[in-house]
């Protein structure tokens, strides 16, 4: 491969081809579309990057077409320059004829002739030199070169041709017109055209001077004769050096006002100066510059490298996806031990923590009226063996609870321990998944969070099933945030009597009645402190049960007094409440706002319950609006935009306050349930827009009754499912 590369270096034409392929692709063509030619393995990889791009272009099936198009564009531009040179030569001859006049012994004003022949082009030449020296990148502006390019474009389009033809012409056009190549190519064309004009003028002049007789003169009105004498001397310097006959000092003087009549020697000297000037100041510099420009253009072409940063080259440069199939397929892994859940033994329920941190509720988790047989929290092999041995050494427990972390990925190592624990326990197992907050912290966003948690619980159930633990005995209970409801679930799991022997007392009626009373008293929309007071009263009702809920609100200490810290805490609380809403309500701006308000106000209410403060005097109210709008707005953006415009009248604001308070009460009532369950119940209990609106005043009670009724149905359904 290395040898072939050395034998086949990348030439300018190859780069043009690669450029043409890129342009064709950018134009929406598919120059690389399925190549029938079989490729050698690694044909498109290896080598330096440009080589890779060029190789890819050479392999393109349309490469011959593109090469042809480039050659055509090149021929067209050569023709264009030749054509312009021809035109220039003709007009140069015309200019010479005009400068010398009709002849027949007329006196030719020498300076008028020389200015008309050399004046403009010398100015342009000086401008070009200035430009090259000062602003080389502006040299492309050269009008003649531009005209040549335009003519070339026109010529190359004459022939017609398909998209590949166009791409080839574009590649040639843009490469040849840009950068150093463009600078010298266009300059070269421009100088060549001027040289042709000078050559035409020279030829015409020689013809005229050979066949006609001219007398030369010069005139002036405001300048002194000395000036002309000096200027002529200076002008003559170069032609004289080049061997042309130039007028002597007395001949210059005598030429004024045509006093040179009938002096063939002087006329020859003057015509020598004219021809010499045309050569020395016109033809020679233009010709030399044209040659130099061509050389520089050639050098630039050699130095030309593809701009690999062009996005069009990216596919060629990207490493190929090289995923290989399995290295060594092996037999499927063995399944874990079979299920063998016998009836429970007579001993007290045993509990063992597996790879967890000691939970915030203490170890073992307190369950009223229950004495655990504590096997400790195990991690390493030695601890695991000790726990298993302890389990086997005593009477079989009625139930063995393995506490594991929801954040942990259930793997075979954990499965192995659960299985041997089951074997040693000689009885049923249950798995409690704690530390769910760690997992929730990793996933942000409502649905993604529910899904991530549900997925992880499913994975645990799958592992449990392989260890013979039925799915219903795999429960998520966050021991770091143990609430009364979750304590009851834990108690129910181990078969101990729950607190007070009955389901937790419902307080929603009391809460809703407070909300209805408050709504009845509001004649104007409540301000934020008034709403926060209502939320605090609701939180007070749930005080006993809500202790852990208050802990769970992510409010830093003292945030109520610190406006800056408050914004963050409130926004987080608002987001977490919004996160509990079911997906369809999260599309409703009203419920989004209610969720955000319930979270943020609840955060304030909870904090002010823990450390009593005068709610009205808090400095955080400005942060509250921003936090609510932020949480509601972030979610609204994802939703549809059409119902984003909620009318913000006074009634709507009162209704919004009722909605937020009701949602807060519902969240407190439902706490301790799994999040998915909370979302389901809320979805069933809360009306959607247009389906039973909150009315202000006394009618709020009716609306709340409706919500409570649907809540009962939803809870009943949730319990039965």
């Amino acid at each position: 491969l290395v040898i072939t590369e050395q034998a086949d270096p990348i030439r300018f034409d190859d780069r043009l081809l690669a450029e043409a392929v890129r342009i064709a692709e950018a134009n929406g063509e598919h120059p690389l579309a399925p190549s029938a030619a079989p490729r050698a393995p690694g044909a498109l990889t290896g080598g330096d990057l440009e080589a890779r791009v060029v190789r890819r272009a050479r392999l393109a099936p349309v490469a011959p077409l593109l090469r042809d198009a480039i050659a055509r564009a090149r021929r067209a531009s050569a023709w264009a320059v030749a054509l312009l040179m021809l035109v220039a030569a003709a007009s140069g001859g015309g200019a010479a004829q005009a400068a010398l006049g009709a002849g027949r012994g007329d006196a030719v004003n020498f300076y008028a002739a020389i200015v008309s022949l050399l004046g403009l082009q010398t100015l342009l030449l000086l401008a070009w030199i200035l430009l090259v020296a000062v602003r080389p990148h502006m040299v492309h502006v050269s009008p003649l070169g531009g005209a040549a390019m335009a003519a070339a474009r026109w010529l190359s389009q004459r022939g017609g041709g398909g998209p590949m033809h166009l791409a080839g012409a574009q590649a040639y056009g843009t490469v040849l017109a840009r950068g150093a190549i463009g600078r010298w190519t266009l300059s070269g064309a421009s100088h060549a055209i001027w040289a042709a004009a000078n050559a035409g003028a020279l030829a015409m002049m020689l013809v005229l001077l050979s066949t006609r007789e001219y007398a030369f003169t010069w005139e002036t009105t405001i300048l002194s004769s000395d000036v002309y004498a000096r200027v002529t001397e200076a002008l003559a310097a170069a032609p004289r050096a080049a061997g042309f006959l130039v007028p002597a000092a007395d001949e210059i003087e005598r030429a004024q006002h045509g006093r040179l009549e009938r002096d063939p020697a002087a006329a020859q000297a003057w015509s020598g100066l004219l021809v010499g000037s045309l050569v020395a100041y016109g033809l020679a510099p233009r010709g030399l510059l044209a040659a130099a420009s061509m050389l520089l253009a050639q050098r630039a072409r050699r130095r030309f490298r593809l701009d690999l940063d062009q996005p069009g080259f990216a596919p060629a440069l990207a490493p190929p996806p090289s995923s290989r199939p399995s290295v060594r397929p092996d037999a499927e892994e063995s399944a874990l031990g079979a299920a063998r859940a016998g009836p429970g033994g007579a001993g007290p329920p045993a509990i063992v923590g597996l790879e967890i941190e000691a939970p915030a509720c203490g170890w073992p988790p307190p369950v009223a009226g229950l004495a655990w047989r504590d096997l400790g929290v195990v991690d390493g092999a030695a601890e695991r063996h000790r726990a298993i041995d302890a389990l086997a050494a005593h009477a079989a427990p009625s139930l063995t609870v393995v506490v594991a972390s929801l954040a942990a990925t259930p793997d075979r190592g954990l499965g192995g321990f659960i299985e041997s624990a089951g074997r040693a326990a000689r009885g049923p197992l249950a798995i409690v998944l704690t530390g769910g907050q760690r997992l929730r912290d990793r996933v942000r966003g409502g649905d993604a969070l529910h899904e991530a948690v549900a997925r992880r619980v499913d994975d645990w159930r799958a592992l449990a099933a392989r260890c013979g633990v039925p799915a219903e005995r795999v429960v998520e209970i966050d021991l770091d945030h143990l609430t009364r409801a979750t304590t009851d679930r834990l108690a129910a799991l181990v078969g101990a009597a729950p607190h007070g022997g009955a389901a937790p007392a419902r307080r929603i009626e009391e809460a809703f009645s407070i909300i209805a009373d408050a709504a009845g008293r509001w004649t104007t929309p409540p301000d934020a402190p008034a709403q926060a007071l209502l939320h605090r009263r609701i939180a007070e009702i749930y005080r006993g049960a809500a202790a852990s809920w208050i802990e769970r609100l992510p409010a830093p200490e003292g945030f109520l007094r610190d406006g800056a810290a408050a914004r963050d805490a409130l926004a987080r609380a608002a987001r977490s409440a919004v996160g509990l809403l079911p997906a369809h309500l999260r599309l409703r701006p009203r419920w989004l706002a209610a969720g955000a308000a319930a979270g943020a106000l609840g955060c304030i209410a909870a904090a002010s319950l823990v450390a009593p403060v005068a709610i009205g005097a808090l400095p955080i109210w400005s942060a509250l609006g921003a936090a609510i709008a932020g949480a509601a707005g972030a979610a609204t953006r994802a939703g549809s935009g059409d119902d984003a415009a909620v009318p913000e009248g006074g009634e709507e604001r009162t209704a919004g306050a009722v909605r937020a308070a009701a949602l807060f009460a519902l969240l407190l009532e439902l706490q301790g349930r799994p999040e998915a369950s909370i979302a389901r119940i809320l979805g069933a209990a809360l009306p959607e827009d247009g389906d039973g609106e909150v009315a202000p005043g006394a009618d709020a009670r009716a609306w709340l009754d409706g919500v409570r009724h649907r809540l009962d149905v939803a809870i009943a359904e949730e319990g039965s499912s």
Partner: protein
Amino acid sequence: VSALLRVAVVGHTNTGKTSLMRTLLRDVAFGEVSDHPAVTREVESAVIEAGGAPALELFDTPGLEDSIGLLEALDARRGARRIDGVDVVRELVEGDEGRGRFAQEAKALRQVLASDVALYVTDARDRVLAKHRDELEILGRCAVPVVPVLNFTAAKEANVAAWREHLARANMHAVAEFDTVVYDEAGERRLYEKMASLLDRHRATLTALAEERSAERRRLLRASMVVVAEMLVDVAALCRIVPAARAGDAALTDELRQRVRVREQAAVDRLLALHRFRPGDVAAAALPLEDGAWGHDLFSPEAMKRFGVRTGSAAATGAMVGLTADVMLGGMSLGAAAAAGALIGGLVGAASTHGRRLVERLRGSTELRVGEPTLQVLILRQLQLVQALLHRGHAAMTVVRLEGKPGAAAPLSTAARPALKLLARARAHPAWSSIGDGRSAAGTDPRRAELVDGIAAALARSGMR
């Protein structure tokens, strides 16, 4: 030419081994990634090239799930024999246990034994547990250098210090931090450096690879900016000449807007392809896009607000937002460089461009073109997208929250100004737009290509990394 460096990627289950592969390979399609245990069941490999030659062969392995059990089995097998740890490992993976109970671990360990170096991937958010210690103990017995790679270090709850201490206790000091979700160029470079520090024989290859990745990234940034600049020039140059009487015609405005929307979407598609994200990939879904397109319509007042673009009262009402019936003289201000060109004779070109427009204007036509605020939004949100793409690991699965607050956009806003200034030049050349009426000179005018380059360079200077 040094030999192919074989790298085994190992670790506990669900720590992001395949994600690391994807990110190192820049290949979103490699393997399968999900938040379940034991997703990768077999060893899969892929090659990374450096300097045009294969440099690294990466092997993705199934997770080590039961390291505690495996270590016990290894110890039991060794018993009182005086025999090297690596021989015991070899015995075990080739023995009955290696086919039965520890089949999955054996696949990974066989690959480690056959490799030059192992990358031990760990989730820095996890606590350091006995199973991790045992994994390291087992890897330590494989007689292969191990570079621990801390994944998810960008997460808030990452426990980097604890992990480093633990790894130091296991005598592993060349630890690399490399988040596969939030891509960090320096992190990748350090990973290769850590590998080089353990593998002197392959140092040249790894250094070349790191260099190549840097160059690739620079190229990617430039190429992204060229894509954006092309689109900006197309939009800025876009100009429709309509009869003055129809200047307020909503149908005409809508038609123009639609062209701009389509053009912007094309740029988004190209950017995604350039960064090797496919619309519909998990990774692409997590960009600030929705289904591969911007959530907010370009011409909506929200889009302006979101990027902190201030507009006049017309924008506030949302009626004529983002479109202006341009006064021709505004588009004719040429800028100093162009003036110098005109001085030398390019005057002809300028006159031919403006002459036609002047004639149209005298005929009672008016020009409909995209307003400056819209250009500003285009610049800012494309920059934001490029920024997100550059910092997106090819394994990212969750949503990256880009702050869309006006405050966050402010530094970008100043960054966009040089590009906006250059764009003014495009306004004088309707033919430079590839989405305009009539014949487009977008592919043929070298001055346009030069302008695109200039704008791309200005955008690249705007604080992108």
